């Protein structure tokens, strides 16, 4: 049992059944990987570091959405509004109250969770298309609130946020902020992994798989569906707060319905109901526009550019590619990157005897 998994299922205790790392090897690899990432600020350029930070921040929000979509079987296309709510709340708390940013971030998560619970109430009774419309309403109601509530969000003028500080020490620049994001990412992913091993987590999965059976087994549907909304909003709020103190400016631009769809794309591409898949999906969605940027820069002035007279429209290629890739994933890889990753692992494990 030390380093290899025996073929067949020999798990005889609940602890063995719910373990996160099946072998010591996989646990050590994960720890080594995290330690390796800790050196990223020392070696990577500012550009790559900012991409890693973005992946870290959005992965937390996507994780929240995966609880809702992947584990509970609900849907939300208002996730970006909760993200933004967390961002504004954290900026507001740390600007107006004598609370350092260190505490403002989790507080923003809690406040956003409360707002999520309010919008989760109709979700407890709605399913499918009706729920989509209800969450769409949340998106628009919150965005409208941000553009009008001058006292809270600065109205149409972007609000400013303080840099991250703890006990009088201020984190300045991406190189230091990277560790803040990494810490939050690790804690969030551990928390959710653990949640899914508990009674509450399994209740969510039961609702997803068949809500009627779950109810017959004594699971309180209203409670768990609302809870799932609250949790999703909590992680969106934390993620938004991290984003606010990373950018130092919060604006209600760029967090419309399109951003909510991007969060859904992260979950779908990564794999619904897969925690590690969420991270992969986020990395994919963050890197996609960047790679399109490299391609369009490479194309600039080339024969293809001239033949199609792309000029300034070359940036639109990016938007088109994102749409195409989401469709391609739904068609050819509906289980997401997590599934592909499992297949790659199995292939190497069994190599060369895969058949």
């Amino acid at each position, binding site marked *: 049992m030390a380093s290899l998994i025996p073929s067949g299922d020999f798990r005889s205790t609940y602890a063995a059944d719910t373990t996160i790392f099946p072998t010591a090897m996989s646990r050590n690899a994960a720890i080594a990987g995290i330690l390796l990432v800790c050196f990223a600020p020392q070696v990577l350029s500012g550009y790559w570091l*900012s991409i890693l930070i973005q992946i870290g921040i959005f992965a937390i929000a996507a994780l929240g959405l995966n609880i809702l979509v992947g584990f509970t079987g609900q849907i939300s296309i208002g996730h970006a509004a909760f993200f933004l709510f967390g961002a504004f709340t954290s900026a507001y708390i740390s600007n107006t109250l004598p609370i350092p940013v260190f505490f403002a971030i989790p507080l923003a998560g809690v406040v956003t969770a409360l707002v999520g619970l309010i919008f989760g109430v109709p979700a407890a009774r709605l399913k499918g298309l009706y729920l989509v419309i209800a969450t769409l309403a949340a998106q628009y109601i919150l965005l409208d609130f941000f553009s009008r509530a001058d006292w809270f969000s600065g*109205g*149409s003028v*972007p609000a400013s946020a303080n840099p991250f500080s703890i006990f009088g020490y201020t984190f300045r620049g991406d190189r230091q902020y990277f560790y803040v994001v990494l810490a939050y990412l690790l804690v969030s992913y551990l928390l959710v992994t653990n949640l899914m091993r508990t009674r509450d987590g399994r209740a969510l999965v039961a609702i997803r798989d068949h809500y009627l059976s779950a109810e017959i087994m004594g699971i309180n549907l209203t409670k768990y569906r609302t809870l799932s909304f609250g949790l999703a909003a909590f992680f969106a709020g934390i993620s938004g707060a991290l984003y606010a103190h990373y*950018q130092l*400016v919060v*604006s209600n631009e*760029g967090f419309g319905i399109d951003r909510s769809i991007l969060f859904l794309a992260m979950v779908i591409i990564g794999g619904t109901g897969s925690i590690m898949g969420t991270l992969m999906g986020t990395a994919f969605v963050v890197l996609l526009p960047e790679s399109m940027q490299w391609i369009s820069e490479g194309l600039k002035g080339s024969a293809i550019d001239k033949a199609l007279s792309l000029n*300034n429209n070359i*940036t639109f290629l990016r938007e088109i590619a994102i749409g195409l890739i989401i469709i391609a994933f739904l068609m050819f890889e509906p289980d997401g990157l997590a599934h592909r990753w499992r297949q790659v692992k199995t292939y190497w494990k069994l190599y060369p005897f895969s058949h």
Partner: protein
Amino acid sequence: MTMKSLTRTISLALLLGGATTAQAQIAIGHLADYSGGTSDVGTPYGQGVADTFAWVNKNGGVSGKQLNVDTNDYGYQVPRAIALYKKWSGGDKVSAIMGWGTADTEALTGFLAQDKIPDISGSYAAALTDPEGASGKAKPAPYNFFYGPSYSDSMRAMLTWAAEDWKAKGKPGKPKFVHMGANHPYPNAPKAAGEALATELGFEVLPPLVFALTPGDYSAQCLSLKSAGANYAYLGNTAASNISVLKACKTAGVDVQFMGNVWGMDENAAKTAGDAADGVIFPLRTAVAWGGNAAGMKTVMEISKMSDPTGKVYRPVHYIAAVCSALYLKEALDWAAKNGGATGENVAKGFYQKKNWVPSGMDGVCNPSTWTEKDHRATMKVDLYRSKIAGATDGDLNDLMAKGTIKLEKVKTVELPRKPEWFGW
């Protein structure tokens, strides 16, 4: 196969990266909006900036150094502008930024002051004119510059004209003024200043009407204008969105004198709107429009050839304003390079060296401007023009302008006093 294409991409990226750092250069960041809410006017402006720097590089650069301009389409989104700013302020700092929108420029103001990077923005918000925050109405903006009258001053000039116009027409009663635009920092920037002056000049100020930055159906807004009996309406958005209002109001038969923001009207917009754009009043930032009779127009034509070798493309007013803005920066860079190097701090000082100056080769095109350590209002003179449309506006813009189907007719030059109570808002 995939591995091969991957290595190819990487080597290409390395090649591109290597090429840009080969020689001593002056780095400039350029925020352009080619795809966002203001792309209608952002595209000619961005092209003007890019062409001007390409032309400067072709003619020997700045004190022998080539300009390395990093042009990026940020889609009029603040987060993307911030991300680009991080790139430009970390590591190899840029010497200056050619900025764009009001929301992103105001969001960057604090960072610019901290990092000492001048930003020559396409936003003319009055809040950016107060370098020390002495007015008490805006935060200090020591590294913000722009060429042309501020939005608020343009608004004040148009209201001054409107008050005279009302008197000249001899209509009875109080004229009614309304501010129209999106709920966004850019259209909102001159709102308070405009409404205050309107009240002072004896206008009745109606509640503002909101319409989006993107083109759409704004019949409802026109009906509100009609039922409220507005006489003078300020259009705070950019041209494409304003056209929608002009057309809808023409259909609804609304009799209102429209007054556009500097970005609110241009030749392309007049062509698209056709007779609906007839009679709109708007400020022109340059002394002449494309093809105008001025010594400097030759330089503008040369610059235009950088992206249009045929010389046949008609360049709207925003393009010429971009040429002026970029050339002011070029001269400030020149001064900085000769006085201790092109650091952001020196470039900002470069703007303060002359009074009432015009970039060389631009006589008769750019209006003389003055920036001082205490006041970044480059000019208080506002030239008001009226768009005249005589007939159908199909066909080439060059022909339409040559035949006089579309005409920009000078109405009045308003020389505003440099009042301290008008500073910073």
